[in-house]
């Protein structure tokens, strides 16, 4: 029996922020990993492989959003067998991926915490068509006022009951975005919820929060929610805002020179991006 060839060692690790947008939000995690593997090959990025008879490319994912959920802040890490300019990788990989899986940022990983450890919380928007803003405001206020909101979800291990409230640090209506859809008289009202949810076990997902809103206020949107993850990262306890999880890897310090978590906020693109995201689904 032939021995598998010894793998070429990893000489550079890259951390990548990518988005899944539009119709590609229906990709599953497995779909994305297949697409990324093929794109890496097409782009000629010297990806490292695992040892053994069926070598796998060294690409790992952190906190992937569920099928059907759009995201502006997904993260993966690639091990390379040769060093490459992160800016080149960003362009090459983005070109090789189908439009809708878009590469937003690539940095060289520095020693220290893993990317998964930095993803303490997520910021989400949930677009709901056919919901009047007042109803949504009432529901979110009732939800945030509650100490605990137990919801049920069908998991692989059966029906599970857990608290959906404590993981939610903020939840409200996105100001200025809650509006009527379309301009003519047939337009339906639409509201966009915005929330920051901490990473917990079991994970509290946006649809769990919606279940919680139904629980506390009978909130029942008539159409399926359009969920978008705007950001993931360390949660600043003082501001309640998320910071960029790639900042600790950046070689140049963020503006202000002080690389503590709070100051990373200045380079945080999530706020700027969010309006586009919402606007991309008219």
């Amino acid at each position, binding site marked *: 029996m*032939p021995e*598998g*060839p010894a793998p070429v060692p990893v000489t550079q690790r890259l951390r990548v922020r990518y988005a899944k947008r539009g119709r590609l939000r229906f990709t599953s995690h497995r779909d994305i990993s297949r697409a990324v593997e093929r794109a890496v090959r097409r782009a000629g990025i*010297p990806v490292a492989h695992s040892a053994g008879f069926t070598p796998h490319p060294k690409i790992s994912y952190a906190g992937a959003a569920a099928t059907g959920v759009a995201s502006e802040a997904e993260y993966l890490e690639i091990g390379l067998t040769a060093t490459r300019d992160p800016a080149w990788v960003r362009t090459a990989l983005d070109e090789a991926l189908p439009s809708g899986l878009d590469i937003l940022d690539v940095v060289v990983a520095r020693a220290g915490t893993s990317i998964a450890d930095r993803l303490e919380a997520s910021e989400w928007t949930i677009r709901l068509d056919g919901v009047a803003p007042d109803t949504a405001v009432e529901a979110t206020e009732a939800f945030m006022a509650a100490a605990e909101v137990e919801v049920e979800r069908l998991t692989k291990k059966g029906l599970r009951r857990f608290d959906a409230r404590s993981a939610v640090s903020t939840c409200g209506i996105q100001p200025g975005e809650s509006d009527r859809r379309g301009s003519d008289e047939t337009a339906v009202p639409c509201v966009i919820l915005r929330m920051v949810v901490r990473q917990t076990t079991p994970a509290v997902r946006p649809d769990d929060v919606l279940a919680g809103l139904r629980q506390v206020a009978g909130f029942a949107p008539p159409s399926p929610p359009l969920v978008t993850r705007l950001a993931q990262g360390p949660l600043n306890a003082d501001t309640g805002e998320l910071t960029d999880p790639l900042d600790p890897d950046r070689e140049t310090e963020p503006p202000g020179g002080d690389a503590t978590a709070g100051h990373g906020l200045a380079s945080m693109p999530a706020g700027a991006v969010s309006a586009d995201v919402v606007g991309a689904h008219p």
Partner: protein
Amino acid sequence: MPIESIFPRLEPLLPTVQKPIQYVGGELNSQVKDWDEAEVRWALMYPDAYEVGLPNQGVQILYEILNEREGVLAERTYSVWPDLEALMRKHAIPQFTVDAHRPVGAFDVLGVSFATELGYTNLLTALDLAGIPLRAADRTDEHPIVLAGGHAAFNPEPIADFLDAAVLGDGEQVALAITEVIREWRREGEPGGRDELLLRLAKSGGVYVPRFYDVSYLPDGRIQRVVPNRPGVPWRIVKHTVMDLDEWPYPKKPLVPLAETVHERFSVEIFRGCTRGCRFCQAGMITRPVRERSITTIGDMVETGLKESGIDEVGLLSLSSADHSEIGDIAKGLADRYEGTNTSLSLPSTRVDAFNITLANELSRGGRRSGLTFAPEGGSERMRKVINKMVTEDDLIRTVTTAYENGWRQVKLYFMCGLPTEEDEDVLAIAGMARRVIKAGREATGRRDIRCTVSIGGFVPKPHTPFQWAAQADHETVDRRLRALKDTLRRDREYGKSIGLRYHDGKPSIIEGLLSRGDRRVGDVIRAVWEAGGRFDGWSEHFSYERWAAAAETAFAEQPVDLAWYTTRERDEVEVLPWDHLDAGLDREWLWQDWQDAVDGTEVEDCRWTPCYDCGVCPTMDTEIQIGPTGKKLLPLTVVR
């Protein structure tokens, strides 16, 4: 007229259906052309789920060839699963293409590729969702021409009522020819409407338009004759044969889906046709003669395909890949080129031949040697003579011994059950063969972890083969023989545990038999099954034998025919077969003689290396065997990385 995307209406439904990604399109190398700039618009359908349909070579080839042409647009559509079908009906969303989500009803041609007859009910679902009348006779100038192709189209009679036209054989050139006929008719201002267009296609001799042929029946149910009912329409419709595969190196830019599909590899067809002469094999009969793609074109296609797709697995596709005249050099050349690049190479269809182990070793260089598949097809020597599968049990044992010695641990063997003249002992002989395989493997390696999997399919007699006259075995017989085989293997204490057995019950084969050799009267059965909810008949979890049997019972109540008449009845030489007016080039007398030879156990050699045995294809179709060797070699690639 502007054609709008239905996607905004589809999108809200997608979160609630299984695997929504299959409906969104956006595959790498897919394309969306401007609707208004196109003169001729094709919707290409594979009538099964996306995961099965997307990798289909035929659809990918035609998609690329048509889209390359100026003024021609092609998009793809697949069967939607029942969960989405229900929602589409509720929200009045029509059958759509995945490329631009345009309604299928707006295209000029709906070209459907039938690899199997079990897709017929899915055709009806698609037509109905598209708003196209099921019966071709009810369609107007506004509806697309519904055109069938693929192997099942060599007897399209069971779906003749639902088709406007069918084409036989290789699609590359005829798809373009049809496009030109439509374009010209359109430029002339569409004279005579749909009828005139179909007549022009029929007169070309290469397009079968069922409505221009009348079928009459004898009192006992057999066909009396099939006669053209329009002047200028030919008596026989001939198949199409592409004669230089090097001139048609498609797919150049393979479609790479986001969704997972049944074949996660880039396939290069290394030759078309097969003259091994296996008598059960419809593909081998209707795709003659053998036409090889040259080693250099194959090398170029693999290189371009890998570059364009990013896929890491290449399959060298054909009906019997090891038979390519330069397969050794191809395997070695590709293995040299891609060594160390984590690209895997495979030869999906292998014959029982020790040379294949050398090939498999070459292709798996440095990789894991897990399993090899061989297809003896018949369990006994006698049975293999009947089907002209010229391989002895000693050949097989020699081959698998070599395989085990070379580090392969698992051998898979394919067989058929229900073959003409088969007796119980022929099927039980499979157990003896499998035992010898394990024994040989243990002796060759000194190990106990040798495995052999026996996979058995039910035999279905197919049109245009020597077995087109044969009685199909009833499902009770097939099931009894398979049970006896299973019991024999289970009782074997020495080898039984090393032998896996995979088979299905015999009922689906009977329905496949009805659809394969059926005539126009079977159309009512298909429609009744579809109306009773029949969908995805190729999937065991959706297939219902009872539904088909009940529909046949009702549809044939007033007829002198029934399900058994179409399946388990042997035909005689003079009976008019439903596909006799459709010409695959095979001489009917030769086919009959080969059927007689089968019963006698007389074998026929391959005409690639023995003299022509007059099957009739080359002279009738004005074609010839195209094989190498070219003497060329694959040079090393300059690898950039």
